[in-house]
């Protein structure tokens, strides 16, 4: 019989491998979505997840993927609960997550000037407040002329 601590640690490792459906280079752990892992009597697992944007279609996919990942790991009783408060913030994206976003071609969230993820130039302009998913805005670099996504601050 494993200790609760060992089980929780195993669950967290498995969660760290669940990708975000929209930005698959990021895991849900990189995004800072995992609020808690609780191991109940009899081995039932409860995972608390923060939703990102209220209407983000990825939320239900993430939930299903978390259940599937833990069931594949042998956990038979898995309960995913939504944790609304405090609201998810892009401040919770990890340092590793920010680097992965940048390497993937998406400028990570920043309140300062937005740097082009292709060439690093700060000579960028916002083309659209909204982009291809609720979390992104559309930018263009005026040096290398490439368009790119910026992960909005929330």
């Amino acid at each position: 019989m494993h200790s609760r601590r060992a089980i929780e640690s195993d669950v967290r490792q498995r969660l760290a491998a669940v990708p975000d459906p929209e930005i698959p280079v990021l895991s849900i752990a990189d995004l800072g979505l995992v609020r808690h892992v609780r191991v109940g009597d009899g081995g039932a697992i409860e995972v608390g997840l923060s939703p990102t944007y209220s209407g983000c279609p990825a939320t239900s996919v993430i939930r299903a993927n978390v259940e599937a990942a833990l069931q594949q790991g042998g956990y038979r009783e898995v309960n995913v609960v939504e944790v609304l408060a405090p609201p998810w913030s892009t401040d919770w994206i990890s340092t590793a997550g920010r680097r992965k976003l940048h390497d993937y071609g998406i400028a990570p969230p920043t309140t300062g000037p937005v740097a082009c993820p292709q060439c690093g130039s700060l000579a960028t302009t916002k083309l659209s407040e909204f982009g291809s998913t609720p979390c992104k805005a559309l930018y263009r670099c005026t040096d290398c002329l490439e368009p790119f996504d910026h992960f909005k601050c929330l």
Partner: protein
Amino acid sequence: MSAAHGRTSHCVYVLRLADSNLVLAQRLGELIGHAPALEEDLGLANTALDLLGQARLLLTHAGKLEGRGRSEDDLAFLREEGEFLNATLVEQPNGDFGDTLARQFLFDAWQVELYERLAASGDPQLAAIAAKALKESRYHLRFSANWVVRLGDGTAESHERVQASLERLWPHTVELFDADAIDREMLAAGIGADLTAVRAGWQRRVDDTLAEATLARPADRPWRWYGKRGQHGEHLGRLLSQMQALHRAHPGARW
């Protein structure tokens, strides 16, 4: 009151908020693929998505408060027109781009002021939803206010048309701030927002943006709309007939 259908004031209060979000999300959804430019199409669609997400949280909460085991889908798809408690502002047709953005601006400014207060509600679930939704609604307001300025301070034609949009929509803003028995009861219970304070904040935001847009604040008119009591104009029924068609034809349908 007939629109309450035996529900508690608390449930009705949350349902009103849910319905305004749901109906506006549906209206904005009509524009997908039809906005004047790709950026605006994305902006309006993303705003619709956020409002729909907020509506789902609020409807689920209202369903629990109602205590009859009804889900978000039951409440969205199986109520009749007179049971919808949205403000009539949000059921107004999309009209031209000025009508759509003026409606959005008046709504966003109200929602930001309202959510700022509801984030401190004594109902912890409502407070959590408001705190989360506030961040999204601030972003919507930036988009819609920018467009009101661009249209108002744009060409002579865009100025004239968006001013006419404001005049048409203005009477529908009155009920947003006109506290009735339910609003007063919820304020006294520490659950609802003080609509006098919401109105003051809203007017500041509206006046600032209209001044920048070189637009005039419309004069208040004597008539009143009360969508929040289930009294709607001619437009809501058609919107619902489209929104509810699939669920009524195939009860319990799921994606």
